[in-house]
């Protein structure tokens, strides 16, 4: 167990973080190079004011027409994404590991709250799964990759939840948890999870076009 755990939490985690940061950097720089090479005009339309105006509307629940039209989805997707990002970053056990390895630490969530947030992520993932399977307009455009990325995202939380409660084979679950977290990190830049990286850019461009050229709201 020592060997396996040390492997997943050591070299594998290094690789995952390298792929995540390196990959994210590569994808964004690559995009900017491509814009510069083939669609340079995009830069001339970009506007900080209209980009931020658009982004702010879309990152606030119910601030856009479509969020208001889909109240259930809006509540769930915001809760899901907030918990998805905040839980791993502010989880006590994770911060303790950062402290032990690099002597850096920051504010942490109470474990009970983190537990609830994990459940929110898992329930959110289940909601998205059900939505994919049951809503015709979603099902129609769903491919295998959609289930794969949903699984990639849900896995660290399911295993983390089981590990925290020490259900089933704890040491094994714990190792799977680390593995699942690493897979998710590494997958972000190279799958459609990259919407985490690109959505601010696509939003900003559409916001700039609507604000600067079209004089209309894009929300």
């Amino acid at each position: 167990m020592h060997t396996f755990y040390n492997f997943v939490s050591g070299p594998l985690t290094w690789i995952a973080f390298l792929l995540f940061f390196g990959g994210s950097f590569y994808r964004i720089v690559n995009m900017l190079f491509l814009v510069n090479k083939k669609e340079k005009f995009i830069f001339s339309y970009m506007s900080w004011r209209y980009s931020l105006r658009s982004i702010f509307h879309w990152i606030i629940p119910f601030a856009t027409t479509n969020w208001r039209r889909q109240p259930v989805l809006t509540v769930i997707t915001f809760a899901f994404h907030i918990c998805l990002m905040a839980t791993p970053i502010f989880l006590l056990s994770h911060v303790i590991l950062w402290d032990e390895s690099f002597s850096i630490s920051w504010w942490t969530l109470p474990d009970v709250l983190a537990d609830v947030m994990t459940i929110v992520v898992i329930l959110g993932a289940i909601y998205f799964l059900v939505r994919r399977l049951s809503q015709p307009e979603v099902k129609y455009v769903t491919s295998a990759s959609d289930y794969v990325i949903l699984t990639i995202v849900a896995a660290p939380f399911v295993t983390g939840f089981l590990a925290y409660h020490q259900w089933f084979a704890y040491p094994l679950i714990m190792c799977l948890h680390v593995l699942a977290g690493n897979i998710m990190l590494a997958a972000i830049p190279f799958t459609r999870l990259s919407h985490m990286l690109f959505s601010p850019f696509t939003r900003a461009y559409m916001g700039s076009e609507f604000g600067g050229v079209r004089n209309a709201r894009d929300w």
Partner: protein
Amino acid sequence: MPEPSKKEENEIVDEGIDVGVSRLTEDKIQSVINSVIDAETGARLKIYVDTCIHCGLCSDSCHYYLSHNNDPAYSPVGKVKQTIWEILKKKGRVSPEFIRNAAIIAYTQCNLCKRCAQYCPFGIDIAYLMLVVRRIMHKLGVTPLYIQDTAHSHSVTMNQMWVKGDEWPDTLQWQEEEAQTEIPNLRIPLEKEGADIMYSVIAPEPKFQAQLIYQTAIIMNVAGIDWTMPASVGWDNSDMAMYTGDNEIMGRLKRAHFETAERLKVKKIVMGECGHAFRSVYDMGNRWLGWSMPPFTIVHAIEFYHDIIKEGRIKIKKKFEQPITLHDPCNVVRGAGLHEKARYVAHAICEKVIEMHPNREHNYCCGAGGGVINTGPPFKMTRIEGNRIKAEQLFSAKTKGARVLIAPCHNCHSGLHDLVHHYEIGLDIKFFGDIIYEVMEKPELGREGK
């Protein structure tokens, strides 16, 4: 998973598409597709496709989807799936039959209205993706016959309607003479160098609706505008090449238009009540020519009317009595934000304005724009059945008392006319110009002359 049946498409016969498809092989398709994708697309196409999380949230924005009882094949992302996703997945190696279906989707089941861009949480520009598909279809020679005919006309005559060189000044002279029965000293100034305004129209005006030029001449005259119209090519601001994917011709047309204004040394271009022409001059054609914004101040008729009413250049004698409802054309509302100015004009000239919902930049498209009406009779029912939701919207405005529908855009006008007729809604459709002409104060002399 059962794919929704789209039987009706196979029954449609469009010679432009079908003959084009019959000439294709998979090799040819692949090489054309890849040449377009390699040479003409970049980060946008790649990032849009990589970022889409397949959530389906764009669906509710689309009038085709809503009008087909939420058939997912008509949702914006559903149309992307059936076209560009598959093209990219197969690296361009798709069958002629696939191309046929993709052409029908891109040309006739999307008005490029960009409403979906307002509903996608990521702001993915689905209309752009459909334009990429149209560009591919153009290069493959698979374009609907009727709209391709207008593109040919643009190419040969520099106007959309095969209006011959002498027919244009003849029509203007004819309308000038007609208008002189009302205002004897009225002129339609041709080629007046240094005028404040060059007025440009779409070719269907001289071809079928010359009375619109007559009305404009009266309004210009009463408002005391220093205006002119060109006698040569460049008078037509319309652009169907933009919608077939023929960007090169789009560029030629817009260059001729801008250069004509430059030659006449005017301060700005005022254009008639047309939406697509505005898009071509203000958004797409100028970009093709390398202008991030148009090289001339472009004033759409809505804004022009707004200005002359606000400045008191024309006075309203008696407001239009019948209650009206106002359609927001995509290309000048979602495309240029003229919705409040349109309301200012509507309230200034009409007793009662009844809003339809959704409105302003969230309006439903008329179903005719984006060149769809120009694909002609084979796809008339695609357009009408694909916009039942607009008919319901119009009907609801009517039940609130509206009797007249103002549609300040040619394509909207014609498309809404078909909807009103087919769904038996019973609304009169008018341009702003029709009503302004009717309710404005005109010189007494002119009235005696009539």
